[in-house]
């Protein structure tokens, strides 16, 4: 009897704890949304918490008329499509050879180290910038995509996933006369769907959220991806050395609701997408060599 009572209470407390955690996780975004739908006066008085005050869509109307925002949105969307597609392709084609046992691919250890070292060493901004410039990529979308197109960490995750694929399946395919390519495409890829979905999402998120490279590699603000754009509007300013001419429009620009609207819109696409890929997450992540 006693034990039964305990069992009944546990799910309630457990659910309560988890719901609280869930709430804590979404509150900040709700707050931003609330500010973005409030009047400027209410927002700058700091009286908005989780529900809009003096509801208005003014700030969205304002954003709608800002071509710079939409241009950056477009750049970001193109970036995640091309960047996500390319990196998933490269992840697959790199992970497969690396997942081969040493006996059937003698160079795999060499290759593996070649990949691994890039995760540790980098020479900093200047050489990196110069190489990208030398390839003539500056100011083009490829400057945002190619340098990070091989996600080494994802390759390692996927190669471990590939190793979990039963050897018999691959062997059977080889006996049927299939080569590496067909084995990869007809056996490994379909079996790895959850992993691939997860890694695709990794890459989408990384491409969407990266802002620093846009700042350095683009020669024209029109080509900034969205996060770079948001960084330039959210940046803190000191007023040393400003002239009257520079200052005149500050008031309109430092508007908090407008900033919130752009921040909210800037995170919306990813927030909308990931729940659809969520069911793959758990299945998708296997750390090599370790079985539950």
């Amino acid at each position: 009897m006693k034990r039964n009572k305990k069992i009944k209470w546990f799910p309630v407390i457990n659910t309560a704890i988890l719901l609280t955690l869930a709430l804590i996780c979404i509150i900040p975004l709700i707050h931003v949304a609330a500010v973005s739908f409030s009047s400027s006066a209410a927002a700058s008085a700091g009286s908005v918490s989780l529900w809009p005050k003096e509801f208005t869509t003014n700030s969205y109307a304002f954003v709608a008329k800002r071509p710079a925002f939409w241009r950056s949105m477009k750049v970001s969307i193109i970036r995640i499509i091309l960047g996500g597609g390319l990196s998933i392709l490269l992840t697959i084609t790199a992970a497969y050879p690396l997942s081969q046992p040493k006996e059937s691919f003698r160079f795999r250890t060499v290759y593996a180290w070649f990949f691994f070292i890039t995760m540790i060493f980098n020479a900093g901004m200047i050489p990196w910038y110069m190489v990208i410039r030398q390839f003539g990529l500056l100011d083009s979308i490829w400057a945002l995509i190619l340098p990070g197109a091989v996600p080494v960490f994802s390759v390692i995750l996927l190669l471990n996933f590939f190793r979990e694929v039963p050897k018999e399946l691959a062997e059977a395919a080889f006996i049927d006369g299939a080569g590496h390519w067909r084995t990869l495409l007809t056996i490994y890829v379909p079996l790895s769907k959850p992993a691939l979905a997860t890694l695709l999402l990794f890459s989408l998120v990384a491409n969407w959220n990266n802002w620093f490279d846009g700042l350095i590699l683009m020669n024209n603000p029109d080509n900034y991806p969205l996060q770079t754009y948001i960084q330039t509007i959210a940046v803190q300013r000191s007023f040393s050395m400003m002239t009257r001419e520079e200052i005149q429009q500050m008031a309109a620009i430092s508007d908090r609701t407008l900033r919130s609207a752009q921040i909210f819109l800037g995170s919306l696409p990813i927030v909308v997408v990931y729940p659809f890929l969520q069911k793959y997450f758990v299945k998708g992540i296997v750390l090599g060599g370790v079985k539950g």
Partner: protein
Amino acid sequence: MKHRRKRELPLHLMILPSMILLLCFSYLPMGGIIIAFQKFIPAKGLFGKQKWIGFDNFIYLFQLPNFVSVLWNTLFIAIMKIILGLLIPIVVAILINEVKNSALKRSIQTAIYLPHFLSWVVLGGIFIDILAPGDGLINQIIKAFGGQPIFFLGDNKWFPLTLIVTESWKSFGYGTIVYLAAITGIDLSLYEAAQVDGANRWNQIWHITLPGMRMVIVLLMVLSLGNVLNAGFDQVFNLYSPPVYASGDIIDTFVYRIGMLEAQFGVATAVGLFKSVISLTLISVSYWFAYKFADYQLF
């Protein structure tokens, strides 16, 4: 032999595009590490006649008055993040696993994954608002309970803690995934057998679920060792300000300021190299441990 080469050829071809990209964008720039040993004047360019100064940049660096505090901040913040980043997801994963209603379970997961997908650019803007001492959401709550407002982002006592907590907040939900994966791998018949033996929930968690996750926990613990110098550039950069440099300036933000803003690229590259070498050592040690104790091989 010939047959073998032929058989391996497609494998080489498959990996070639990735190799080319890494060669171009990772290895080619690595040549620039030489800057660490030069008195690098940007205007003279990478291939210009820079003055070689051996290890002077490193010596200069170690003698900088704030370098020790930067190093300490980095270690403290990173290690605390690692510890919380291990503990919280384990607990939450176990709790989630106990939720039987699958719709509820999914919704909770969706919610706690959310922060992981927001960039620090966005979150920086949000937290500066929410943590504001006067009208910020959190301080409104503190004041409602009669407490004194806290300068989370401006007080050296609170700033590191704020970094650690917000990072844990951002990543704990997503961190549960690995553990949930481990839990799903546990043989269900073990639970059934336990129930027959009359074990309650706690006993089951303690004697079946946790041991079932043991390997993953050990492994992640060991692997996270490689991160003790990564305190999170994006986060700190988007949240810090000069008053909290004393407690919040980390290696990466320090490098950024002396490199990108003051154009002391020689020193900046030296710091980067210093960090890479330490990281390499730590990672080697951690993988050796992982291999030794968890029989784990990365590749």
